[in-house]
């Protein structure tokens, strides 16, 4: 079998410099999951409508299923695995645990990365603002109530 052509990509994932050869058609989601081996970022739809695959690229929230792996050369990516540090959990992670903001947990990585994108820029969002910001992330288990409360709690905790 002929090997497909590949694209050379240098990127930073969760603060670590990484280098890959990716097939030109491969999504960033698959690049992160299959090549970088970070399976915390989830697949829900592959068409940009569920947010389970949310990562941040240079501080911007994106659905990684809609970006090609080949597009992130020179960029810096944060996934759910990059939220906790040696000092402990991110306040959002802690708040999600304390507020029972997850049931099955498949949507959780996407919500955490998306919510971090909000709190990094707006430390004190209203409920309406949180609901608006997170509207690109589907959760089918929780009805969003406890997710919104957890984000509110994390916002307060990080002041």
């Amino acid at each position, binding site marked *: 079998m002929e090997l497909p052509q590949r694209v050379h990509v240098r990127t930073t994932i969760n603060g670590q410099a990484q280098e890959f050869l990716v097939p030109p058609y491969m999504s960033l989601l698959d690049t992160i999951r299959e090549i970088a081996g970070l399976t915390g970022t989830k697949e829900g739809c592959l068409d940009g409508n569920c947010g389970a695959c949310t990562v941040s690229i240079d501080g911007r929230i994106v659905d990684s299923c809609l970006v090609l792996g080949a597009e992130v050369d020179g960029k810096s990516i944060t996934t759910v695995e990059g939220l906790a540090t040696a000092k402990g959990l991110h306040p959002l992670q802690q708040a999600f645990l304390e507020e029972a903001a997850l049931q099955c*947990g498949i949507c959780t990585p996407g919500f955490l990365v998306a919510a971090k994108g909000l709190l990094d820029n707006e430390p004190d969002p209203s409920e309406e603002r949180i609901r608006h910001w997170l*509207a690109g992330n589907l959760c089918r288990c929780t009805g969003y109530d406890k997710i919104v409360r957890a984000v509110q709690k994390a916002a307060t905790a990080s002041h």
Partner: protein
Amino acid sequence: MVQTYEPKSDYKVVGTRPIRHDGLDKVTGRAVYGADVKVPGLIWGEVLRSPHAHARIKSIDTSAAEAAPGVYAVATNADFPDPRAGEIDSGEDVVNFERDTKNLLAKDKVLYKGHAVAAVAAVDRNTAIEATKLIKVEYELLKPVRNVDEAMAKGAPILMEDLVGDDLGEDVRNTNVARHFRHEFGEVEKGFADSDLVVERTFTLQMVHQGYIEPHNATAIWDESGHVTAWSSTQGMFAVRDQTAGMLRIPESQVTVYPVEIGGGFGGKTKVYLAPVAAILSKKSGGRPVKMIMDRNSVFEASGPAPGGKITVKMGVTKDGKIKACASDLRYEAGAFPGSAIGAGAICIYGCYNIPNSRIDGYDVVVNKPKSAAYRAPGSPQAAFAIEQVVDEICDQMNWDKIKFRLDNASREGTRRGDGVMFGKVGLIETLEAARDSDHWKTPLKPSTNGMLRGRGIASGYWMNGGGKSTVDLMLQDDGTVAMNEGSADIGGTRASIAMQVAEVLGLPAEAVHPFIPSTDSIGFTGTTGGSRTTYATGYAGWQAANKLVGEMSKRASVLWGIDPSDVKFAAGKFSSGSDPELSIGFKDLAARIGDTGGPITTTASVNLAAAGAAYGVHICDLEIDPDTGKTDVIRYTAVQDVGKAVHPSYVEGQIQGGVAQGIGWALNEEYFITDSGSMANHTFLDYRMPTSLDMPMIDTILVEVPNPLHPYGVRGVGEVPLAPPLPAVANAVKDATGKRILDLPIKPGRIIEAMGS
């Protein structure tokens, strides 16, 4: 004789809100879900699906796909061993493996758009997808049957030529009605004649999807020894084992299923779609592990939605506010193969009412849509949508208080359910009273200040809950903690709710019990996480195993002290002698001595619970409608539910809130929109449009605790009933807001505008 328990009140762990044991893995991305499974040498499987809703397969040519670079194997239905025909009682479930194999890979006919026709295994996912396009299938198109009316019409195209329908016990051939049954008692016609008001309405409903965010997946190896090893996100690893073994015609002991985390199921992950196909591809690829992930379109088009259908309810009442008689006709879409939730729908439709003269007709109807599967209180939300609107209309016409009418006619201990079964101790009255006394119900709805139409609706719902088989193993560690193996898939917090019941018995904090879900070879049979059974039944097994552990430890204390075991008491985390107050040892200190008092302590308990405690919910919904566009926003929502005993109240609230969100979506805009050619037009999340965070208000919950006497801690299942009341609560609120009653789901903007114009 069924064992019953007195209510208990002095809980230490049950009723608290510890951080769940599996939480850390799930907020850090470490938790391994089905798609995350990595096995050395992994290859990928992909499915070719039918573009037609109803067609005969004339030929399948797989040669080009097989010859394609990177392809290991191609499979079709012919690769299944000859299935056992007919219905088989697998001990858990009535199954029909012949039909199941035809659903996994079509045989002579495709019965819905998206029906799997062939599968390919290749070196990677992309190669597998491309190779499916090389398979040539010749179809002879047939007219699709799109709903129960078309299916039951004279001269309707027949889906399954070999189907023998059961019409009230008579065999029927050449039919799309797999089953028609009736429950009846009292004198229904006389009851209507004696009524002062009789209301009869017919409702239509469309299929809706469970909408779990994680697609179906499976990874399987069928090795040279004939053993199948599988990993799959599922509500029941034993169900995957038994269905895989049944379809591949190998003994269940030849299949090992490793459970992985499951990204939502709501009933939709109780049937397998991929594992047996992955196993066949593995075998044909020389025992390589094959991973398959269903794409989202296929999840919608080919994996179990909840039935749509048609329901007629006729209810008669007397002037004194009593229901005299009720007759209902429920026609549920099974999808492409028989087996809708019609049985449960018929059980649930009168679940909230004491009806002296009662008749229910149920029809299980095949149509050219995906085979339906369980969805949270399967069959009950549809039934609630119908009967709760009829009740609302009767109360409106008679000017009766909607809670008082429900209280006056409420099911209680000794009432006969529509199928004749007698209720045990149920908490509907307490739930209605809590709704009546709630801040929400007592606070009148303020009119809108910006021209919106506002309305309030109330509705109740019933689910019987399940018991069944469960196993829990406990191992005492010498540091005084306990390792717990249990067989139930944890779909949203049951590791915690089971471990907490064990901790309660042992006088330990929840964190000192470490839950683990091992493979099917490593724990006794445990039924699927479904029927709201897990915290009840597996928790019950945990309670028993913990009591056995206390018994074993008491023996060790007696060895230590040289006294009779019967003299050892256990209370508040301490073992002590009943006769000698000097003799006392804490749980942890005794755990450290197990080595020198007889060695390791493990206990196990398996239960098979015939009965469960039923659950009731009463929901209040306030909404606001834009009269120009028909767009509806829910602005306040309160869900009141009898939960028996909330083991972990946060997750009980979460179950209720999640069910409400699904119910609001079902009520207002979710549906399988079926085109003339019989295909689903809206098979993406974008077009199917489930509620987002922006569509939902906060959802208030009121947990009513009427202990279930069948469980030592009074636990009732809580997960399913919250999906039943939202559909009618929303519909009744729309009626209140607009003055128009909408009998067809979903109550979408166009329908509201149309109703308001009429």
